[in-house]
């Protein structure tokens, strides 16, 4: 669902209060955090969606990497996962379901976690994802609400997966489509591991609300304003060309309509603006770290093999979630 629609509905539900809830549904964060004791907190998240690629094994990997990402975005380690499956029994061969689950299994294994169950329903369109549980120290939780003026913002994956999914449906830009698939299937584990050696003030992962939707959540949650340098954004191959020729998903326009606090410099081209709002699947982590650590974090991530890392912006001042893209 679009961010506006969802917020309107969630607002109508009374908040459940519990002193052990360290991060709940009120702050638009990636996962919930529940304090078990003085040294351990549970981190829980769930996500599932319809196939974004044709290859069922690849779809399973991407769905699992996407679900696991919320755990990494909170600075936690994944422990266990449950499969959530919808499948058109009788319409698609059982091998397709096997391949989806194999992809999920392999990605969870790569993350060092274990699948301990799941639930499957009959549905017209396949859907797959995971509920994931992780742990972290209660004092070491990364939220999206801790960014401070002067912080540098570091993004760990290239943008444009939604636009390239459109390109895939149009059988265009095969190189970019392949790069997007590889990016979506990649875990955010290494990024989180490397960043844990730095002073992470805030972290989120870039998913359905697009780069600026999640930047806005960080800015609003942290009570700051943020400047994004559009020329520093890592872009997937062909993403800019595909956006320019109108392969922009409806979700990008929905995100754009929802975000009223974004100002673009005149020089930022329309296709780059579209990419800024493009809904991402299994996108990168966005870190806010002290300004002097920004470049060092980017270099450390690049040295660990993450090729599309860059310092993409700065937290400028106290504010109410204003975003300026130059």
């Amino acid at each position, binding site marked *: 669902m679009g961010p506006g629609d969802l917020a309107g509905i969630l607002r109508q539900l009374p908040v459940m209060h519990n002193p052990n809830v360290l991060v709940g549904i009120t702050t638009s964060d990636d996962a919930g955090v529940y304090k078990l004791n003085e040294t351990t907190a549970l981190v829980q998240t769930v996500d599932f969606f319809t196939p974004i690629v044709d290859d069922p094994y690849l779809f399973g990997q991407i769905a699992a990497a996407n679900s696991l990402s919320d755990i990494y975005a909170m600075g936690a380690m994944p422990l266990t996962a449950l499969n959530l499956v919808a499948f058109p029994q009788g319409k698609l061969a059982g091998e397709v379901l096997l391949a989806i689950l194999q992809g999920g299994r392999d990605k969870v294994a790569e993350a060092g976690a274990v699948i301990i169950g799941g639930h499957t329903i009959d549905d017209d369109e396949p859907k797959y994802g995971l509920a994931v549980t992780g742990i972290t120290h209660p004092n070491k939780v990364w939220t999206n609400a801790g960014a401070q003026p002067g912080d540098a913002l570091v993004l760990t994956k290239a943008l444009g997966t939604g636009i390239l999914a*459109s*390109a895939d*449906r*149009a059988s265009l830009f095969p190189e970019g489509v392949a790069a997007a698939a590889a990016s979506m299937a990649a875990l955010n584990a290494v990024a989180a591991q490397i960043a844990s050696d730095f002073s992470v003030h805030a972290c989120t992962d870039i998913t359905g609300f697009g780069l600026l939707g999640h930047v806005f959540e960080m800015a609003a949650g942290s009570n700051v304003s943020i400047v994004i340098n559009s020329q520093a954004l890592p872009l997937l191959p062909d993403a800019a060309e595909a*956006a*320019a*020729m*109108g*392969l*922009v*998903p*409806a979700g990008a*326009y929905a995100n754009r309509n929802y975000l009223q606090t974004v100002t673009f410099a005149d020089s930022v081209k*329309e*296709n780059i603006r579209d990419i800024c709002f493009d809904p991402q699947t299994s996108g990168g982590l966005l870190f806010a770290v002290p300004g002097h650590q920004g470049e060092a974090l980017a270099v450390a991530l690049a040295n660990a093999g993450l090729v599309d890392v860059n310092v993409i912006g700065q937290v400028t001042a106290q504010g109410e979630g204003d975003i300026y893209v130059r």
Partner: protein
Amino acid sequence: MSDRVIDCRGMVCPQPVINTKRAIEAANAGRITVIVDNQVAKTNVAKFAAASGLGAAIEEQGGHYYITMMKGAEQQPAAPAAPVVADDDAGSQVYLITQNTMGHGSPELGQVLIKAFITTLLEIKPRPAALLLINSGVKLAVQGSPVIEPLQILAERGVTVLSCGTCLDYYQLQSQLAVGDITNMYTIVETISHKKTVTI
């Protein structure tokens, strides 16, 4: 010249863009109108037209959008594999024509002058890229206009002739348009912002 209408109502993106791309690639030259029924498709098809080097006029009627593109010899789509046809006579000059006479002073003289002006455009090389007609300028493009013939010849040669839809409505001439297409202020502003424009 051929007219093609691509009805993409009921389709979700990227299908309208795919169908537009196929239609433009298949057409030799002529007018291509894509009909869509949602804003996302409208915006994406307009982006595709711009990326292909085609100007697009967009009209909304009853919640449906009619996106009209002109594929001419001087407007080859920017498709990488498409062979580029050299057209030495194709120009880039845009004329924004704001009235159905030329200059201030005697209206009778003004009518003689505008007729001479449009007719002379036929002789000029390179020929103009577009004529944008606004306010009483739209009267030049409707039935009974003294310059309808030269305008039709210009259009056949690939000059884009666009009349302001609001102005046609105001003068109640929408049904009498005899040459070119209807456009809106967005397309006009976009065109004069990006192209060398002389106002008449």
